[in-house]
């Protein structure tokens, strides 16, 4: 009896000391929640589900997507900020929630790298400058000339205040020195509807769905916003090639964990993410939304987040975009 008890005590002690090490070694031992701060449907949700599904097969635990929509992504983002930093709660973050919101929403009091642990970049999404098929402008220079001729008369649609499509257009107006009218919509669908209907002159949209309208002859693409041409529409020049110097607008997407998440856990998730991103089938799936994979280390992600935050902040200050 005595021996048994001592043996039990020894065993317990051994187990106790081994636990912390095992916890890290055996991460994950239960489901991982991937929070999408937007409602189901739409590009963010699709990306999270594609990545989550692929990571489930690599990391050895179910990666479950949870939609926590609200306040332009602030609600879901903050829920992850306040979650336990153990790697079991991850966030799909992007330029909108991480780089733009902190400048425009008073409620978005978080900082992308101080309040979160960047886990790894997923991809970047460049956009396309698409015009109404009846607009006389044939290229970006033509559009700028038209806007200068009739200041304030051209209308552009966005998927909402503070979204990537809004910022890309404001950056264009700022860099080209033109005055254009912003017509906000709820989401890219209604915005595109009015472009096709001829009520809107141009908009910045994700490349594949814009390309679909362009090939159907319902709209024309004048430029893409990345630094390189898009394989989807190789004939379309970049903004820089089309005379807008230094212009670049691409939304970055990545996985984040709450600040204080242990390094080994971050390394493990980052490893799984990079394995997944190297898979050509997955790359093809991501390409549906115009995503260009950007595998890398957590440090790469951290740097990208900081420069993104600074870039949009500078635009919002310089162009005096007042949202609140």
């Amino acid at each position, binding site marked *: 009896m005595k021996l048994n008890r001592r043996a039990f005590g020894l065993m317990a002690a051994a187990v106790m000391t081994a636990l912390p090490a095992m916890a890290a070694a055996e991460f994950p031992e239960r489901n991982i929640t991937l929070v999408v701060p937007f*409602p*189901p*449907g*739409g*590009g963010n*949700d*699709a990306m999270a*589900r*594609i990545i989550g*599904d692929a990571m489930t097969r690599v990391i050895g635990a179910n990666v479950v*997507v*949870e*939609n*926590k*929509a*609200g*306040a*332009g992504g*602030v*609600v879901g983002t*903050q829920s992850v900020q306040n979650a336990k930093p153990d790697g079991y709660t991850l966030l799909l973050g992007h330029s909108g929630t991480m780089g733009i919101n902190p400048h*425009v*929403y008073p*409620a978005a009091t978080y900082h992308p790298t101080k309040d979160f642990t960047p886990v790894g970049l997923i991809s970047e999404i460049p956009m396309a400058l698409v015009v109404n098929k009846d607009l006389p402008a044939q290229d970006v220079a033509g559009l700028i000339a038209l806007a200068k001729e009739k200041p304030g008369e051209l*209308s552009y649609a966005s998927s*909402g*205040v*503070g979204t990537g499509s809004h910022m890309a257009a404001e950056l264009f107006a700022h860099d080209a020195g033109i005055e254009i*009218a912003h*017509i*906000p*919509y*709820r*989401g890219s*669908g*209604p915005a*595109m*509807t*009015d472009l*096709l*209907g001829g*009520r*809107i002159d141009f908009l910045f949209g994700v490349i*594949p*769905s814009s*390309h*679909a*309208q362009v*090939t*159907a002859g*319902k709209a024309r693409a004048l430029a893409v916003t990345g630094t390189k041409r898009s394989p989807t529409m190789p004939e379309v020049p970049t903004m820089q090639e089309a005379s807008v110097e230094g212009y670049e607008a691409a939304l970055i997407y990545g996985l984040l964990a709450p600040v204080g998440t242990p390094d080994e856990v971050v390394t493990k998730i980052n490893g799984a993410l990079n394995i997944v991103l190297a898979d050509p089938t997955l790359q*093809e*799936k991501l390409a*549906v*939304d115009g995503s260009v994979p950007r595998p890398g280390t957590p440090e790469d992600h951290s740097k990208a987040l900081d420069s993104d935050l600074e870039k949009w902040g500078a635009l919002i200050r310089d162009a005096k975009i*007042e*949202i*609140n």
Partner: protein
Amino acid sequence: MDLLSNLALGFSTAMSLQNLGLAFIGCLVGTLIGILPGVGPIATITMLLPITFGIDPVGALIMLAGIYYGAQYGGSTSAILVNIPGEAGSVVTALDGHAMAKKGRAGAALGISAIGSFIAGCVATVVIAALALPLTDLALRFGPTDYFALMVMGLVFAVVLAHGSVLKAVAMICLGILLSTIGSDLETGQARMTFGSLHLADGIDFAVLAMGIFGFAEVLRNLEGGEQRDVIKGTMGPLLPTRDEIRRSIAPILRGTGLGSVLGMLPGNGAVLAPFASYTLEKKLAKRPQDFGKGAIEAVAGPEAANNAGAQTSFIPLLTLGIPPNAVMAIMVGAMMIQGIVPGPQVMTESPTLFWGMIASMWIGNLMLLVINLPMVGMWVRLLKVPYRLLFPAILIFSCIGIYSIDNNPMDVVFTGAFAFAGYLLIKMGFEPAPLLLGFVLGHLIEENLRRAMLLSRGELSTFAENPVSLILLIVSVGLLALSALPSLRAKREKVFVED
């Protein structure tokens, strides 16, 4: 004949054993989940989305479409049985459907909504197959000014919807519109009437409001009466609709189908108006309009058909343009993207099996729903015999689960509770919740389209008069309003009760 060969391709795709099975599973599961009080099509599809990942794109979309129709039908079932509409479309069904259930005719209401939905679905499928393309270009001409005028007309429907005082109905509409303005301003991003709460930043969810002031308030009101209830006490009459009831329903079903088909194809979510428009039309045409609100079968048949036809034709903008007209279709877009399909006009030419297979599966899905649901009517009706002390807590618990599942947010449940008390007070004071809900649904659309029209015209109000469609719609609205207001004004003067 292009159409015939295309349809043949569609049916050969949809009739494969796998796709038939998927359509069946979709319809069945959709019905079962959708029947949870307050769980409408959006929540159901979201919950079930992951099970389609492993299937090929055509099969996955067929299954999702099945879930959609199933959930829509399930939502009508809970609207009729327990007066809880899961989405805007079933608010109208709840009005007379639940009144019929109270009179012991729940089976007839369920039966006629299944039959009406089936007929509407069949017609709408033909409309999509034959006319989707030409109608798409026509629908694109509909701009913000036209939507604004259309929604104003919708508000007039709300006056007709009420069967009590016109003044009280107008008050409720205004309250509904005010509630809809809570949340971030679309143009400035400014938070309006949120009291600094992030929870209110996106406004109030329709299901939260509807469940509170409809379903929960109904439960509260029923508690007053103790166990004495008129619901199917004693004789129940025949389970399914009688021959006379079916005869009376045929014309409303056909008219509702027409209205729904037209409104549904507008890319700006015109489908939301369809059941309300049908209700208004039927009430105006009915021989006994005073029965409306007290269990008139025409008031279930027409709107249900309109709702289903609208739901079906709202696939048109999605399939032909790749643009989702409402939240449900947005989830379908997400599903397409997950399957590696870029939504857009090219889907039709690049993947004809997908396009035509889905259209064929719509017809098959509607048939399956009829087959699944008619035998279940008896089961649902028996559910009403469960004593209140068991039924009510069950309704409340399932409703709370449903609300929580919308956004995974416990505050939504709290809000529903608050609306329940407000709804109870309103009922007690003779205010009807239906006009409030319609005002709430249309409020967003009216405000956004008005402001967008103003932005596009750079502030010129004349834009509404310059545009023929909006001008006609606005004139019709004023006329309708005058027509509905006059009798009750006269009635007051002559102290005669015209419309109960």
